[in-house]
């Protein structure tokens, strides 16, 4: 029989056991969940973040707009281009700069490559948590081809620091275009195999169907975003809603599922990658000629003002609130990260679940502790 904490037992009652999950747990990753258990059931769960808080926002106030580029991608190195994309859009808007079309396309290409890199990690670990070893070995291996492609374009392997205010750091080499198209062709076939071995697997269905269901209304109330929102029937996609940086030039869909469970949240990532492939192909084939960055100098002059810029990162809506007082440094730099926006759903989803379901639900939220903590 399940007990409820509020009505029958207090946390101090003998029957209820308080347990810490994390922060040293290898799967949780610098993140703790405080659990109150009744036998095998969770009666209450509270997330405890902050183990990797580095004060990125305060650091941003000490550095000028160019110096801020390399450290701002550290919170989410899996998705490093997308966190800089929103920052660059914000600074561009403050400076009223017109980014050249070739740079806009290159930004889109890099952002979509990073989306795939991030989603591959996400579904690999989802496989691991479900005891599906093939998924983690395949995805971690295949992810490297995308990292290779990123390296051909940006020069670095993980922290690309490619998207910067005024454009992108460097032009794409000619051979990387051909390599990119080949990678897309190969990966498209490969995704069919993921579907067969993982998403259609009866064991995966049994472990994640109907587990951790987030209703559409709750997704709206909690402010859920990205893969979490789209798995709950909420068609939110900043790329469609306010087509920044020439996203309006490309044909793609926003995948939406309605189940709202752990399986759907993992499956949306695969559907997302299918759309990313479409966008990368169109952008590589239609790449306009021209310069790739505006000359801003080492200390750009940014007029006073306030912006709220946002992009669709791999985990959802990435937003920046930048306040400039006309000095070389931002007066206030707020990073609104998708992991922090989805965190409120976690204690709600962990109520009355089995202990064995915690890893699946936790990871299906695509939560990245370093990103949430900043």
């Amino acid at each position, binding site marked *: 029989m399940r007990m409820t904490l509020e009505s029958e037992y207090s946390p101090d009652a003998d029957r209820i056991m308080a347990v810490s999950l994390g922060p040293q747990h290898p799967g949780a990753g610098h993140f703790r969940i405080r659990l109150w258990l009744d036998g095998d059931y969770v009666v209450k769960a509270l997330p405890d*973040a*902050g183990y990797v*808080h580095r*004060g990125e*926002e*305060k*650091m941003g106030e*000490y550095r000028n707009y160019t110096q801020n580029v390399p450290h701002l991608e550290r919170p989410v190195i899996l998705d490093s281009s997308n966190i800089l994309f929103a920052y660059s859009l914000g600074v561009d808007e403050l400076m009223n700069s017109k980014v050249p079309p070739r740079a806009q396309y290159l930004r889109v290409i890099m952002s979509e490559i990073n989306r795939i890199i991030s989603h591959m990690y996400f579904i690999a670990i989802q496989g691991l948590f479900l005891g599906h070893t093939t998924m983690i070995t395949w995805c971690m291996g295949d992810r490297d081809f995308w990292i290779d492609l990123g390296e051909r374009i940006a020069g670095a392997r993980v922290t690309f620091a490619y998207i910067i205010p005024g454009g992108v750091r460097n032009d794409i080499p000619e051979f990387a275009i051909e390599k990119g198209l080949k990678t897309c062709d190969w990966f498209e076939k490969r995704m069919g195999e993921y579907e067969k071995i993982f998403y259609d697997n009866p064991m995966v269905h049994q472990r994640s169907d109907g587990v951790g269901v987030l209703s559409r209304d709750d997704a*709206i*109330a*909690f*402010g*859920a*975003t990205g893969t979490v929102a789209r798995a709950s029937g*909420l*068609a*939110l996609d*900043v790329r*469609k*809603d*306010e087509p920044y940086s020439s996203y309006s030039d490309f044909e793609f869909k926003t995948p939406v599922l309605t189940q709202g469970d752990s399986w759907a949240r993992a499956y949306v990532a695969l559907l997302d990658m299918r759309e990313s492939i479409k966008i990368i192909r169109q952008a590589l084939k239609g790449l306009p000629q021209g310069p790739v960055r505006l000359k801003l100098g080492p200390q750009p002059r940014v007029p006073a003002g*306030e*912006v*709220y810029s*946002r992009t669709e990162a791999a985990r959802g*809506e990435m*937003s920046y*609130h930048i*306040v400039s007082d006309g000095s070389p440094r931002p*007066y*206030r730099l*707020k990073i*609104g990260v998708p992991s*922090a*926006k989805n*965190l*409120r759903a976690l204690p709600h989803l962990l109520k009355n679940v089995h202990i064995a379901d915690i890893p699946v639900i936790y990871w299906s939220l695509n939560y990245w502790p370093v990103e949430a*903590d*900043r």
Partner: protein
Amino acid sequence: MDRAKAIADKITSKHPGTKLEWVKPRRLKVSAPASMIKDVALFARDSLGFDHISTVSGVDWIAKNALEVVYFVGSTVPGQEGFVLALSERVPRDNPVVSTLIGVWRGAEYHERETHEMFGLNFQGHPDQSHLFLPEDWNDLPPLRKDYVSPGR
């Protein structure tokens, strides 16, 4: 821009105490006095469709002796998803008390908690204002206030 302006006009005409700070394509910022902010928030959610909290930010205006809290709210209404309303209020730095808006947007809970620990804003009615990102034993000024200086600076 016109549509954002139209939304702003609806708020300022319904609640005459509010002030339109700026309007940009798909963005608008409205400031409200602390006594009115909950009514304005409810109006924005129920009548204008701003139902999806994006984030909560704070700004320390130390020269004006004010702390500002800004709620960024998106929308899930079809056709309006690209719009973001910034709803702000300013309180004096020496008595930074605001009322919580969790009753309007449940998702604001952790964002308000973060703003509380980083700026020292006291959200009245908030169920849990313990530290979320800071260590439990943090015993200094709230770190994002301008008079807090990072070690080594």
